[in-house]
């Protein structure tokens, strides 16, 4: 398994376009050059992974990393996490919960479902930028396996 060679595509799943933009900006400021894609709700990312609908779908052999918000229209982040982690191929994908909620029960639920990291978006921009910088560092160090066969 050749893991380290492929830079993962970062998939930001967030219904708040501003948040997605801020995350993208600060990750890029932190020096990340990965391709970044934005999904506006849980359904669109599931469609991407499970090859539903007309939109873009994931490609075999590509590595992905998911930055997942929780409260989103249609399908929420916890359900997306559950489906990813229940899939025998997708469950290897690193999923980072990135949300404004810090409710301990919500955190526990996500950990139970197998999220890799739980990060709260700090309101304070200084803290936010710092969190994103660390996240960027974490991502560069993370070995992300490419998606192989699924179905």
């Amino acid at each position, binding site marked *: 398994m050749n893991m380290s060679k492929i830079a993962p595509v970062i998939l930001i799943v967030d219904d708040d376009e501003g948040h997605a933009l801020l995350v993208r900006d600060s990750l890029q400021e932190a020096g990340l050059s990965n391709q970044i894609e934005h999904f506006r709700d849980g359904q669109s990312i599931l469609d991407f992974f499970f090859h539903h609908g007309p939109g873009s779908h994931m490609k075999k052999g590509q590595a992905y990393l998911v930055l997942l918000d929780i409260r989103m229209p249609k399908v929420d982040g916890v359900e997306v996490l559950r489906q990813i982690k229940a899939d025998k191929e997708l469950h290897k994908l690193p999923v980072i919960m990135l949300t*404004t909620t*810090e409710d301990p029960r919500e955190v526990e639920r996500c950990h139970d479902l197998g999220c890799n990291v739980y990060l709260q978006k700090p309101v304070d921009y200084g803290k*936010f930028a710092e969190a994103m910088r660390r996240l960027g560092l974490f991502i560069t160090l993370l070995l992300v396996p490419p998606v192989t066969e699924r179905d």
Partner: protein
Amino acid sequence: MKKLARKRDGLQIGGNQALKVPMPNSGTTLEEQAAWMAEIVASSDDAIISKNLEGIITSWNRGAQRLFGYEPGEAIGRSVLFLIPPDRQQEEKSILERIAKGEHVEHYETVRLRKDGSPVHVSLVISPIKDASGQIIGASKIARDISERIKSEQLLRAALKEVGDMKAALDEHSIVAITDAAGKITYVNDKFCVISKYSREELIGQDHRIINSRYHPKEFIRDLWTTIKQGKPWRGEIRNRAKDGSFYWVDTTIFPILDDEGKPKQYVAIRTDITTRKENEAKLERLARELEEKNKDLESVVYIVSHDLRAPLVNVQGFGRQLERACEKIRAVTLSSDAAAELKQPLETTIPQALRFIQAGITKMDALLDGFLRFSRLGRVALNVKPLDMNAMLASIVESMQFQINQAKAEVRIDSLPECLGDSTQVNQVFSNLIDNALKYRDPARPLVISVSGRAEGNRAVYAVKDTGIGIAPEHQPKIFEIFHRLDPQATTGEGLGLTIAQRILERQNGKLWVESQAGIGSTFHISLPTV
């Protein structure tokens, strides 16, 4: 025994007086018959006495001796008056008068005296004795001891009275009905009529279907009948319908009364009106449901606050920063150009100031949201209540706050404190908060002394955290426990939650928090916690 005085061929027995008795049978000699009769009299369990018309005793059998305790020699020749209690002496006179007229006295129940002076209940049969010519010359008296019977009668009367009293007590308290084995109503008390609004006449002969509310399922009624038909009492709560259509609830016990074969012959139903209780229960249930819904609403509000209300703040803050940086870039470029003069004001003053206010506003709002969340989560934290060593707890609090205490040049005095029951973490939080407040609200003009004391008061431990700080004016005292209330927002830091949370913590542990304070002198916060 009436035949004793029949005028026929008489024979003489006992003493010097003649007693005419009928012949037992013919064919025996007079002497044999006399001896036979004498033996009957002598061996009788009843006392048989004869007396003349003056009341002087002329014969005294063994039964009389047993009953009254006198030997024949002690009694014969004396007036019978000595057997009669002083208050009944008149009786003898009237008896003798009746005898003299030839009347019989049958089963006359009275009291006589024994030799030892004790009274004895007797039943008397007194008949005249006539001589051969038919002249009444005296009386025979047969006295039977009826003490046992009288005693039984008294017991029976007492038992009947007790039953009657019990029934009266039951009727006073309960709704009572009795039915026969088939369930037909044979008795109802007044309370039954009042609550069911039917008259007694309307109820007797009916069965309980007359008050059926159709509220209970068939199985419920079937189970009731199965139970009582087996001779077992049944207990339950029943909704009935009164004559006017209104409903009432009764707590019901049906008690089967069994016949000699052990089969129910009657059912006694004792009921208590529980309509009010049932209404209250229903109300309580409704309130509990409403409360549950409200709690769910509150939970979702908390969730919305924690996520949705915060999400825009991330943008305002984030893009505010981006504006700020863009502004800096513009400034760097424009200041060197000719356009500088006109842009100087907005770029150097207006925009940075606006951004500063925006940032400060967001910081404040974020702190409030954070505090609100912490407060609302208090109710969900599981409590671990156990005995707390308060001396150890306060020592550790003081140790962890030593830096701030030194900074404030404060003196902290801790008395010996009683134990209490509470959640260690949360009670620690309360005391830390109170000491922290004392340090914050100190009076710079005076040295700060914080003293913590405690005493046992019945089932509770009451602690006091007293300071020599600025104190709280009376009109402000009720407000200090309000959420987000801060007495002097400029002077100190914090979001105004400490005391609100402290009070909430204590309320959850059956504790209390209250304050006594005088502006310019200091405050004392009292904490009461249970000890058992």
